[in-house]
């Protein structure tokens, strides 16, 4: 009987020479990825954390049991109802964005499990697919049960199946990152950049945010997911290492492209959750502080370790840390009925904190919140006045990231228009334009919400757009948590006042 140390290398490294077909036919470049190299270049592929199927199943079973135990102890409706209203809405954002995005990770990993160039890579990708399946099922189970309490939690299942503008943006991102990607680009973009660069540490930060908000169910869930991420994220390193030897420029391109695409989605999900959807007394840090402490230093060290440079737009990211998610939040608040979760306005205490954390552009943002407050004062608080304090003109979207044109600063929006093969395309920023122009064939046929409206594919009237296209209802569309009824806002003004 062989012991573990003897049989595991045999089981995880099981490559053979093909006799009836060529290696290029078994692993075509179009789906295995660039650069195409013979197996001799991949044969030393080695994961840093090795496991067997039996060990994997035992570990995952224990982790699942721990999550269920916490759900049974603190996941009842009465526990959830005690959570602060802003945090509850952060949960709804994650409930929608997380589960089916993880499911696309199953598909991406399965591509690696078939088209990865070494058997050890394929073995690890198989475990990665099982991980991502778990990361789909657990949040679906934990979040969707809350639909009894709040119908907006239905978006845990529904989100990616709608044409809601944020779902279009998220699909555009995940379709390229995971569903339609070759094995090499998938593992570099997902494991090395998204997971090693962002989510692995983000989940640690989110868990601490959840703990501060007394949300022990979410804390346990993300902690459990993070332990899987830490293992399968390791697939990206040896893939990247091999490609670096043969085409370092291509790796740098992938880093530059995918850091930006990840940053766009990440800064919204996490930036809004930390700086707006966590109650002020429960915020352990600002989004900027979180990025500096958990993400930036670590990512730069990793790049350095592999001989890679900072993305060419790095200074822009550093500047956007001070403003991008604030512009998105104010814009989304003023179009809250287009989303499936509720919003809070930052009051004087929150704005004082935000000014302290983000002094560079806060004057401009404060002016926006003052103006929105003024509109509430004119309309008066109440659910019936929600749409009086809401945008009516169609907002605009980037032709690459599909997110609102909310980049730059309130003083100077950085949107830019490019003509490509006779068509006009607008981008929120220079990196989005650059990504489009490097591979226009990938993106040029995708229509953003504005082009869908102009072509008649989506309705132009806001109420019909919300219900018929974004698939919201008056019950589920986003509102102000307090319907404008904030003590700090003072009493209603009459128009003559």
């Amino acid at each position, binding site marked *: 009987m062989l012991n573990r140390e003897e049989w595991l290398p045999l089981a995880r490294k099981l490559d053979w020479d093909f006799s009836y077909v060529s290696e290029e036919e078994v692993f075509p470049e179009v789906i295995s990825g660039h650069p195409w190299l013979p197996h001799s270049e991949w044969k030393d592929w080695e994961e840093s954390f090795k496991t067997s199927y039996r060990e994997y199943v035992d570990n995952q079973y224990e982790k699942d049991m721990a999550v269920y135990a916490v759900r049974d102890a603190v996941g009842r409706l009465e526990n959830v109802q005690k959570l602060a209203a802003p945090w509850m809405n952060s949960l709804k954002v994650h409930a929608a964005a997380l589960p089916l995005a993880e499911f696309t990770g199953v598909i991406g990993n399965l591509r690696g499990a078939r088209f990865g160039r070494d058997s050890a890579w394929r073995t690890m990708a198989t475990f990665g697919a099982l991980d991502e399946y778990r990361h789909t099922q657990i949040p679906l189970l934990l979040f969707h049960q809350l639909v009894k309490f709040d119908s907006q939690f239905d978006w845990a299942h529904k989100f990616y199946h709608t044409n809601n503008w944020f779902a279009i943006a998220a699909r555009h991102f995940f379709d390229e990152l995971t569903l339609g990607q070759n094995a090499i680009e998938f593992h570099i973009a997902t494991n090395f950049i998204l997971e090693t660069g962002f989510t692995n540490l983000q989940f640690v930060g989110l868990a601490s945010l959840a703990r501060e908000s007394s949300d022990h169910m979410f804390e346990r869930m993300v902690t459990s997911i993070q332990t899987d991420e830490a293992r399968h994220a390791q697939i990206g390193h040896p893939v990247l290492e091999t490609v670096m030897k043969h085409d370092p420029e291509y790796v740098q391109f992938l880093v530059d492209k995918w850091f930006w695409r990840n940053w766009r989605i990440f800064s919204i999900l996490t930036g809004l959750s930390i700086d707006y959807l966590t109650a002020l007394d429960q915020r352990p840090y600002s989004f900027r502080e979180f990025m500096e402490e958990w993400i930036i230093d670590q990512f730069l060290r990793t790049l350095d370790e592999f001989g890679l440079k900072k993305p060419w737009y790095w200074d822009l990211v550093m500047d956007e840390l001070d403003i991008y998610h604030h*512009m998105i939040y104010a814009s989304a608040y003023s179009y809250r009925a287009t989303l499936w979760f509720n919003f809070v306005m930052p009051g004087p205490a929150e704005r004082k904190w935000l000014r302290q954390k983000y002094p560079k552009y806060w004057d401009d943002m404060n002016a926006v919140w003052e103006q929105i407050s003024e509109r509430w004062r004119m309309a008066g608080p109440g659910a019936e006045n929600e749409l009086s304090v809401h945008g009516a003109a169609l907002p605009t979207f980037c032709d690459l990231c599909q997110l609102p044109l909310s980049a730059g600063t309130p003083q100077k929006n950085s949107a830019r228009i490019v003509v490509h093969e006779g068509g006009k395309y607008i981008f929120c920023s220079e990196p989005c334009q650059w990504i489009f122009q490097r591979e226009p064939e990938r993106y040029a046929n995708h229509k953003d919400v504005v082009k869908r409206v102009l072509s008649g594919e989506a309705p132009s009237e806001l109420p019909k757009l919300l219900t018929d296209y974004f698939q919201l209802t008056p019950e589920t569309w986003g509102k102000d948590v307090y319907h404008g009824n904030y003590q700090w806002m003072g009493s209603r003004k009459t128009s003559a006042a």
Partner: protein
Amino acid sequence: MPIPVYGFLQGDTVGLVLVLEEHDTFQTVAQKLQDAGSLRVAPREKVQVIYNAQAMDPSSTVAQAGVQALDRIDVISG
């Protein structure tokens, strides 16, 4: 024929689709964008319309300036 353009109001946090008419003057264009963004930006009395990096004469029209669908128009203080 309505002309949809991308409008950017200085002080705002998002670009807006603005539907213009060929006969709209740039004074009207400025008013339309200020109205569209008024939830977030307090209307200003003195503004300029910038199109193709040039300040437009408030009395000239969209047709005279050759504004096309999906062009960018900015309204700034001044």
